[in-house]
């Protein structure tokens, strides 16, 4: 337990470096100023609907996945590139514990960065609409997003030198383009899992239905299903990362 906490804290500390945190906050927090620009002259209901549309259409489609991707691929990828892995791995600590700690750290660091952006838009929307529960569903959604991204991209960062670029390709091609046209892959799409959790908890106005249904496709809204899927994904990820740490060469030639 001590090793797990020690690794989780140190990896989180590195991932939440000042420059990265500020840069990614500017990305995830960009919904708030958009909302404030749109708000004047609109009713509270219209602003709430805009908040939902922007959060799903921009936040959950692009901003949150990209920010979580950058954080998650850096968890082991940075250590691999900078050759600091020996400090982490040449210790009497099981590879499974190390893998679990790194995936946990990536998920927590992603959540902190995404939630900072969510809080900014939450405060902006709450101040304009007076509806202060508006950000709860988004908070749950970014928690799901953080775990899913960590599960997917931590092992990728260990294996590939350009994991962030490959991950970006995955988000753009698989999630946004193919996920739209191939119904069979929608159930396993991270974006749709995240939106399904959000849609189950959010107060969706009739104006939002088109946006939400367009993203979800054939996937049913449901926070339980989303949590179950990302939990399974996280378990598989820890197993894969642990195996990679056990069997792969841990430092480039």
């Amino acid at each position, binding site marked *: 337990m001590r090793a797990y906490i020690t690794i989780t804290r140190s990896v989180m500390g*590195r991932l939440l470096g000042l420059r990265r945190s500020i840069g990614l906050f500017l990305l995830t927090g960009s919904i708030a100023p958009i909302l404030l620009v749109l708000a004047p002259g609109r009713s509270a209901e219209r602003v709430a609907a805009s908040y939902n549309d922007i959060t799903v259409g921009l936040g959950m489609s692009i901003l949150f996945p990209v920010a979580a991707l950058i954080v998650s691929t850096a968890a082991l990828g940075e250590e691999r590139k900078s050759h*600091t892995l020996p400090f982490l791995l040449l210790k009497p600590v099981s590879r499974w514990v190390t893998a679990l700690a790194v995936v946990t750290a990536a998920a927590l660091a992603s959540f902190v960065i995404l939630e900072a952006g969510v809080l900014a838009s939450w405060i902006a929307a709450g101040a304009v609409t007076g509806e202060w529960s508006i950000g709860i569903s988004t908070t749950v959604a970014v928690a799901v997003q953080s775990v899913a991204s960590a599960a997917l991209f931590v092992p990728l960062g260990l294996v590939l030198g350009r994991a962030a670029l490959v991950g970006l390709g995955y988000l753009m091609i698989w999630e946004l383009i193919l996920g739209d046209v191939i119904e069979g892959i929608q159930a396993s799409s991270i974006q749709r899992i995240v939106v399904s959790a959000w849609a189950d908890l959010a107060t969706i106005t009739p104006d939002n239905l088109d946006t939400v249904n367009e993203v979800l496709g054939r996937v049913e809204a449901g926070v339980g299903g989303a949590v179950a899927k990302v939990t399974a994904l996280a378990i598989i990820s820890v197993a894969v990362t642990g195996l990679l740490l056990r069997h792969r060469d841990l*430092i480039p030639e």
Partner: protein
Amino acid sequence: MTGPPGAADARDVSDATVVATNLSKWFGQKVAVSEVSCSFGPGVTGLLGPNGAGKTTLLRVLAGLLSPSAGRATILGRAPKRHHGVYRQVGFVPEDEAVYNHMSARRFVEWSAALSKVEDAGSAARRALDTVQLTQDADRSLAGFSKGMRQRAKVAAALVHDPQVLILDEPLNGTDPVQRARLIELFVRLGGEGRTIIVSSHVLAEVDRMATRVVAMVNGRLAAAGSVAALREAMSDTPRLIRIDTDRPRRLARRLLAGNWVESVRVDPTGIEIRTSDAGALGHDIALAAVETGSVVTAVSAEDDSLESVFRYLVDRR
């Protein structure tokens, strides 16, 4: 092992703690380490070789960072890649300059202690930082450290759990002469305490100062193993340069030239430099020649009994 230097059994030590058995490592078509068999035991062993000889790859395989392509590496009887518990007894200083720039030196060493399951990580870190004389800078960020200070922080992190085996890849890189001398003193002391210290270097003078045993690699292969003197002795087919300080250099030189083991002689006002193919025979003849010629011999020394000459010889052979 091929080539004459070092008897075949000089590759191994009787009380081995780190063992490489027919160890090979290749990356695609490139062979970095080829069929290396040797062992390391208590004391300081210098792992020598020019850049690209395979030293770093060998150390990484021994430490469990890389899997061997063939053969086996063990520390304290266990393969580190599979038995992570062995790292309780192993400290490793990688060659790379990288450290955790988001940590202070103290945090880095404490963190290393905690992961190595040291009970009182704070106290252990204080002792380790004191050992490498980083106490005053302990709370500064590693990002602002010079290369030499980073090296010392890495050594402190490797020492903090009091390991039985220390694997140090070019640990003196970037250190100033004073720190270098202190680190060498530290390694010699740790080796004297019965720990296995493996230090790689391409700077021969450094290894000469700290190692009691040398393992030399050239082109990924083990080129020699043993003490510096033993290696030099084993290279009996290469001439040795002996200097004799005497009050009558010309008379003594003329007498010694009668021996057929003398290849060349250079005389100067204070002595003679003789290149010989048989240092043992020359040694026996010097005393006799001195008596016969009435010369007073004040010193006899082997001018090329250094790692530099051993190493040049090994590289040239390849």
